[in-house]
């Protein structure tokens, strides 16, 4: 008490802690993510010219955006397709990952091996391995066979469901989902892992209490597991949306890249990137606000 020391108020101290803890992350973030991002918005409104000793930007206003939307032959079509595809895939991936994680969390022999198998697509999807695969004839065959849906054909299912008088829109969704099973499994490795981590973070005491109260497995799932995992459903939905939009094989990402380093110029490419970014932001905002209504926080 007697120390002649500068004392901070509680709020100030909290603020200081907050800033100190965020700082190491924030420095890199600002330098390598925020600044390049703002730069590319600037590029999108300019014409980039390479001159001796560097580059020069000539402001052109919204011309690049106009070109992307109204003049470019492919952009709009690829754009709409990419957005639509994501909207179809995201719920499927999240739901699949959720149930797969629940199963992989059960105690059974060879569980770690089973987890490895579901994480394999993430490992095999990495740069160098993918390159080798694409160079391999049989691997290409294998992949395309898997993509054609050799397992369950959507068309067969469609006929069957049609007999059951299921509405056309639902029908289309289900059949397209069946055709994409291999892709969905391949895209859910990280999500399964996140859900697994979530399942392991649920305090064991909750389940013990439930056992004492005589919960059935059904009640345990709906009253403990699902609410406790709900924040991660939001996390995974966000991750899936972002992943499917930014993965290198996404046709629009390819278009952005080929425009930048091919013919169209960096300004146009940046404009496409920004448009795409805005549409993801809108989708995320909508999805986020829908899902967060069902999210339960334990505080």
């Amino acid at each position, binding site marked *: 008490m007697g120390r002649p020391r500068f004392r901070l108020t509680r709020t100030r101290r909290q603020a200081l802690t*907050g800033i100190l803890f965020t700082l*190491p992350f924030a420095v890199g973030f600002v330098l390598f993510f925020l600044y*390049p991002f703002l*730069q590319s918005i600037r590029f999108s409104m300019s014409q980039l010219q390479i001159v001796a000793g560097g580059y020069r930007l000539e402001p052109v206003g919204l011309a690049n955006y106009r070109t992307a939307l109204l003049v470019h032959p492919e952009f709009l079509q690829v754009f709409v397709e990419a957005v639509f595809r994501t909207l179809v895939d995201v719920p499927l991936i999240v739901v699949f990952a959720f149930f797969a994680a629940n199963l992989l969390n059960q105690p059974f022999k060879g569980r770690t091996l089973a*987890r490895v198998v579901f994480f394999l697509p993430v490992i095999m999807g*990495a740069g160098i391995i993918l390159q080798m695969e694409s160079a391999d004839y049989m691997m290409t065959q294998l992949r395309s066979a898997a993509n054609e849906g050799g397992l369950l054909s959507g068309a067969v299912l469609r006929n069957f469901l049609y007999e059951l008088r299921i509405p056309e829109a639902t029908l289309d969704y289900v059949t397209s989902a069946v055709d994409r099973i*291999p892709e969905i499994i391949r895209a859910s490795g990280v999500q399964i892992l996140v859900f697994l981590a979530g399942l392991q973070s649920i305090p064991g005491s909750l389940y013990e209490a439930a056992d004492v109260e005589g919960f059935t497995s059904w009640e345990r799932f709906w009253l403990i597991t699902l609410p406790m995992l709900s*924040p991660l459903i939001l*996390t995974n939905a966000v991750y899936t949306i972002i992943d499917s939009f930014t993965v290198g094989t996404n046709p629009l990402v390819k278009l*952005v890249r080929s425009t930048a380093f091919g013919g169209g110029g960096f300004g146009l490419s940046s404009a496409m990137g920004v448009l795409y970014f805005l549409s993801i932001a809108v989708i995320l905002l909508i999805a986020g606000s829908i899902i967060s209504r069902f999210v339960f926080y334990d505080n």
Partner: protein
Amino acid sequence: MQIRQKRLTRSAGGDFVIFFVLFLGAAFSALPLVFAISNAFKPLNELFLFPPQFFVRNPTFDNFRDLFVLMGESWVPISRYLFNTVFITVAGTGGHVLMASMAAYVLAKHRFPGRDVFFAMVVLSLMFAYQVTAIPNYLTMSALGWLDTYAAIIVPAWSSSLGLFLMKQFMEQINDSLIEAARIDGASEFHIFWRVVMPNVKPAWLTLIILSFQSLWNETGGRFIYSEELKTLPYALNQIIQGGVARAGVGAAVGVIMMIVPIAVFVLNQSKVVQTMGAAGINK
């Protein structure tokens, strides 16, 4: 007298259906790996057999031997490439987990000016494919003088937004009373973070380690690193397999070697997760 109670449990038939579906999914994922391993042990004549065979008939270690011979001939010793990759992966992953967790902790559990804006920006930055920011990013590196140094790969990995996002979501689940209790006991903020918060989100950061390791292990450093002695293992192995058709067998061997390490890390990591679960039961 014994009370007989019919318990609602899953039927064996239901279990079978569920595991059958899981197995089909697993088969889809595992097939390419099995094929890649089988390929790595094929002699050259089997690799080019038409129609291709899925399984190897006369397994041989020739491909691996050739790979080591090629490695030995490389101008920069292969151990140097290996060191570079291990260094980048360990430094990048360690720093990322620490920094992202620290930031996530205060974003989840503290109130300070600019917090919400900062988090919103992090989420926004997740949406940006790196292709879009490639050129500005290069210019930043060049201005900092970090081109052709480890820092060009490691420092951006520290601040990758995904880790922060993930850790924050997990840390929000921690009960505030736990942190309050530690604070009343006089723990410093860093102590609370390190001793209270982090052990409680162990599954989360173990997951983050896997994700970060996976991406850095495969880093070729192609955009930022030019000096041969600073290049990474994936880059060197890529060079080897670019040698054309004759290197097909070596390429298969390379693939297996590159995959083994992340798989081993994954297995090790997941066995740790199971221990966490046990520990949590005792603590609570």
